[in-house]
């Protein structure tokens, strides 16, 4: 067994930025602010909501009403005619993307050792997340059931 003990601190959080959060406990004490606490809490709160949203989505899409065979443009048009399902899908999109992106941030922090690699990967991650949420939101709100083709 290895007897090596690593004293490296966890990479979650942003040490550079966190220098700005000064602890009220006294001069020279530096804290990270509460970002990681809120992030941890968000993963759990969004997780609980996602169980209903995602498992409900899978059940409706794959089990009810004759299973997967029914899925097509006409089925999508029928669902998004209702504000309820538009709202459902919007919540699902936003919560899953923020939860997933925040989870990916943790994974990147854990495995990317170099500062530069980490910055590049997170830049790509956040760009993809913003574009995906924007596209999905646009599609839900501008859906046109009488589009041609």
């Amino acid at each position, binding site marked *: 067994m290895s007897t090596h003990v690593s004293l490296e601190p966890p990479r979650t959080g942003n040490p550079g930025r966190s220098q700005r959060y000064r602890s009220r406990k006294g001069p020279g004490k530096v804290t990270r602010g509460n970002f990681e606490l809120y992030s941890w809490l968000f993963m759990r709160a969004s997780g609980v909501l996602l*169980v209903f949203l*995602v*498992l409900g989505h899978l059940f409706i899409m794959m089990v009810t009403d004759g299973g*997967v065979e029914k899925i097509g*443009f006409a089925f*999508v048009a029928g669902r998004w005619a209702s504000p309820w399902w538009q709202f459902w899908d919007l919540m699902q999109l936003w919560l899953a993307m923020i939860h*997933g992106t925040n989870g990916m941030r943790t994974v990147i922090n854990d495995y990317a050792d170099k500062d530069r690699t980490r910055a590049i990967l997170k830049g790509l991650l956040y760009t993809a997340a913003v574009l995906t949420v924007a596209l999905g939101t646009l*599609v839900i709100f501008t859906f046109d059931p009488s589009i*041609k*083709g």
Partner: protein
Amino acid sequence: MASGAQGAKGTLYRGREGMWSWVAQRVTGVLLFFFLFAHVLDTALVRVSPHTYNQVIGTYKNPVVNLLEVGLVGAVMFHAFNGLRIIAVDFWSKGPKYQRQLLWVVVGLWAVLMLGFLEPMMQHTFHEWFGW
């Protein structure tokens, strides 16, 4: 292996259920993230034309893609139930004590739901392969 921290059963965490469920939570989470990205793109095709959308959605009927889809649903269900287990361990006072038993509850729920989803999800593939 002579380390004092290790008994005959090994460490409390490494190589045991707790570690493997963490690995599975991470692998499924990353998989779901990439799929969600692709899924928003394929759904966006409803803004192109009904024909384009139906054509791309039709590729899910291919038996191989269908099997991948079943795997994905399995990944979602594991991540969701094990996620609830993580929440129970964090917030329920008895959670840490029963974390192992909770994992078997997760696996049991997962198996039951997967069995229920199999037929409605794979009807096309069953028909193609076995003529059911």
